[in-house]
C-alpha cells in the first residue's frame, strides 16, 4: 500500500499542479498580509478562500487525476492486489498531497508573520474540507465512466454545497420565520460540510455576528465542548460516507 501511495505521489508531483496550488495559496496569503496588517482580517479573507477555493480545487483536481491515472489503476488491478488497497492508496495520496499543499501554502506565511493563534481553526477546517471534497470527488468519479460527466457531477457537488443548499436554507428560514427555528436550522446545517466549517470558523472570528437570542443559542451550542465534538464528528462523517460508498461501488465495478 505504501508503495502505491508513493507512486501516486510522484505522479501528482510530476503534473506540477499541486505546486501551482501551493504557490497560489502562498501568494494569496502573503497578499492579504500585505493589504492588511490585522491578523483577524487576514484570517477572515482567507476564510473565504478556504470556503470557496479549497473545495473547488479539491473536487476538480481529484476527478481529473482519477481519470488520468485510470490506466495505472487498471494496471495495478491486473496484479494480485486488493481493489480496496489500490483505491484507498489513490485516495490517501491525493488527499494528503492536497492537504500538504494547503498547510504549506497558508501556514507558512502565518509562521513567518508569527501569528500562530488565529490559524489553528482555519487549518483544521481547511484540512477537513479538503478531505470531504476529495471524498466526494472520488464518489463522483466511480459513478460514471465518462470523465466529463464525472467532473460535472463533482462540480455539481461543489455548487450545491456552496450555493444551492444555502439558498434553500434561506428559503426555509424565510418561509417558516414565524416558528422557532433554532433547532431545525441547527439540524439542517449538519447536512452541509461547508456550512459546518463556516460556522466553526465564524465562532472563532466573527463572534460579533452572532448576536441576539438566536446568536446566543448557536454560540452556546457550537461554543461548548459538545458542539465542538458534534461538528467535528459530523465533518468526519462527511469524509467517511462518500469514500465508503465509493469503495463499495469500485469493488463491484467493471472497469
Amino acid at each position, binding site marked *: 500500500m505504501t508503495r502505491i501511495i508513493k507512486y501516486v505521489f510522484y505522479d501528482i508531483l510530476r503534473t506540477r499542479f499541486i505546486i501551482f496550488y501551493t504557490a497560489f495559496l502562498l501568494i494569496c496569503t502573503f497578499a492579504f498580509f500585505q493589504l492588511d496588517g*490585522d491578523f*483577524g*482580517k487576514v484570517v477572515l479573507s482567507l*476564510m*473565504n478562500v478556504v*470556503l*470557496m477555493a479549497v473545495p473547488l480545487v479539491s473536487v476538480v483536481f481529484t476527478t481529473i487525476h482519477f481519470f488520468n491515472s485510470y490506466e495505472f489503476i487498471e494496471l495495478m488491478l491486473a496484479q494480485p492486489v486488493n481493489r480496496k488497497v489500490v483505491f484507498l492508496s489513490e485516495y490517501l495520496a491525493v488527499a494528503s498531497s492536497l492537504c500538504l499543499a494547503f498547510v504549506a501554502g497558508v501556514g507558512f506565511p502565518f509562521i513567518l508573520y508569527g501569528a500562530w493563534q488565529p490559524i489553528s481553526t482555519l487549518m483544521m477546517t481547511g484540512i477537513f474540507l479538503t478531505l470531504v471534497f476529495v471524498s466526494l470527488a472520488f464518489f463522483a468519479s466511480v459513478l460514471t465512466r465518462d470523465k466529463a460527466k464525472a467532473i460535472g457531477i463533482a462540480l455539481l457537488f461543489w455548487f450545491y454545497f*456552496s*450555493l444551492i443548499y*444555502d*439558498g434553500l*436554507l*434561506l428559503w426555509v*428560514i*424565510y418561509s417558516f*420565520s414565524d416558528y422557532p*427555528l*433554532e433547532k431545525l*436550522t441547527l439540524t439542517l*446545517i449538519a447536512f452541509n460540510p*461547508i*456550512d459546518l466549517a*463556516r*460556522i466553526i470558523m*465564524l465562532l472563532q472570528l*466573527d463572534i*460579533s*455576528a*452572532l*448576536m*441576539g*437570542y*438566536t*446568536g*446566543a443559542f*448557536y454560540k452556546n451550542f457550537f461554543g461548548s465542548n459538545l458542539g465542538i465534538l458534534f461538528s467535528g464528528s459530523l465533518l468526519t462523517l462527511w469524509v467517511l460516507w462518500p469514500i465508503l460508498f465509493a469503495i463499495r461501488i469500485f469493488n463491484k465495478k467493471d472497469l
Partner: protein
Amino acid sequence: MRIRLILITGILISFFAGNAATLVIGGNQKIKRIKDAISLAQPGDTLLIHPGVYREGNIILEKTLVIKGLDYPVLDGENQFEIFTIHANHVVIEGLKFINTGIANINDLAAIKLLESKYVRILRNQFENTFFGIYLANSAHVWIEENELKSEAEAEYQIGNGIHLWKCNNITINNNIIKGHRDGIYFEFVTNSLITNNHSEGNMRYGLHFMFSNNDEYRNNTFKDNGAGVAVMYTKAVVMVNNNFIHNWGASAYGLLLKDIRDSQVTGNTFAENSVGIFMEGSSRNNIQQNKFYQNGYALKLQASCDDNEITQNNFQQNTFDLVTNGSLVLNKIEANYWDRYEGYDLDKDKTGDVPYRPISMYGTIVERMPEAILLWRSFLVLLLDKAEKAIPVLTPENLMDPAPVMRPYDFN
C-alpha cells in the same frame, strides 16, 4: 484702612481656625463611637476616625463636619442598616470604608445618603457590598471623587445603584470605579453636572443610566461589560466626549442607547466589541462625530424615528454590520465617514470617494427581520445577494448613503 481690613480678616480666620477642633475616634481613644463624636462636635469640627470596625447602625449627620478616616476604618451596616444619612451643607466624608448595608426595596438603603444638602464632598472612600453606594437626593454642588464601589450580587433586584442621583444639580463625579451594581451611575433629573474619568464595569443593568437630565457632560469614562451598556434617555443638550464603550455584549446590550435625545453631542468616543454600538430612537439634532466604531455587531442602529442627526467623520471598521434601520425614510445626514467596506475610487485624488457608499447591507436588513438568518452570514450566497443589492437596491433604502466617504481612516489619536 486696608491694613485694618487685612488685620480683621486675619483675626477672624485665626479665630475660626482655632475654634475648629479635631475629635479623634477609635477603639482606644476617649471617644469610641462615631455617633457620640457627632453629638459632641460643633459645626466645623473634624472627626478623625482611627482604624477599626464600627457597627453603629444608621448614623444621622445634621451638622457641618469633616469626617476623615485613617487607613480606611470600616463602617459595617451589618446587612441591616443604612450607614450615613446626611442632611447638612459643607460636609466632607473622606477615606472611609463602607461594607454590608441592608437590602430593602422600599427604603433604598445606601452607604451614604445625602438629602437636600449642598457643597458636600465625598472623597476616596471604599464601598463593598453596599445596596446603594452613594445616594443623592435633591442636592447640589457635590463632589464625588476617587471612590471605589464594588458589589457582588447575583440578580438585579438584590442590588441598587452605585452612584444614584435624583433631582440634583452642579454635581461632579470624577475618577470613581464602580463594579457589580445594578446601574453604575444613575441620573434622574440631574442638571449641569459633570461625569469624568470614571470606570464602570460589570454592572447588572447599565453602566450609566441617564434620564431627564439636561445640560450634562460626560468625558473620558470607560463603560465596560455592563449588562445593557449605557442608556441616555429623554434628555437634551448632553455632551458625551472621549468615552470608551467596550464589550457590552448580549441580546439587548447597547454600547450607547440614545432614546429621545435632542441637541446633544457624541464626539471622540470609542465603541468596541458591543452587540450594538449606538442605538438611536426618536432622537433629533444630534451630532455624532469623530467616533471610532470597531468590531461591533451593529455599529449603528438608526431607527427611522430619528431626524436631523449629523453623523460625520467617524471611523467604521470591522463591524459585522455598519448600519441598519427599520424603515425607508431618511432624514439624517451621513457624510464624510470612513467605511472599511467602501469599494469606491478616488480619481481626482481629493481623498474623498467619488461614488457614494450605502452602508446598509441587504443581509443586515434580512437578519434584522429574521434573526435565524445569521446562520448564513459570510457564506457565498450572502456575498452574492449583497453584491446584487448594491448594484440595484431593492430592499434597502436607496437614498440612505454617505455621498462623500473618505478613503483613509481618520487618525484620532
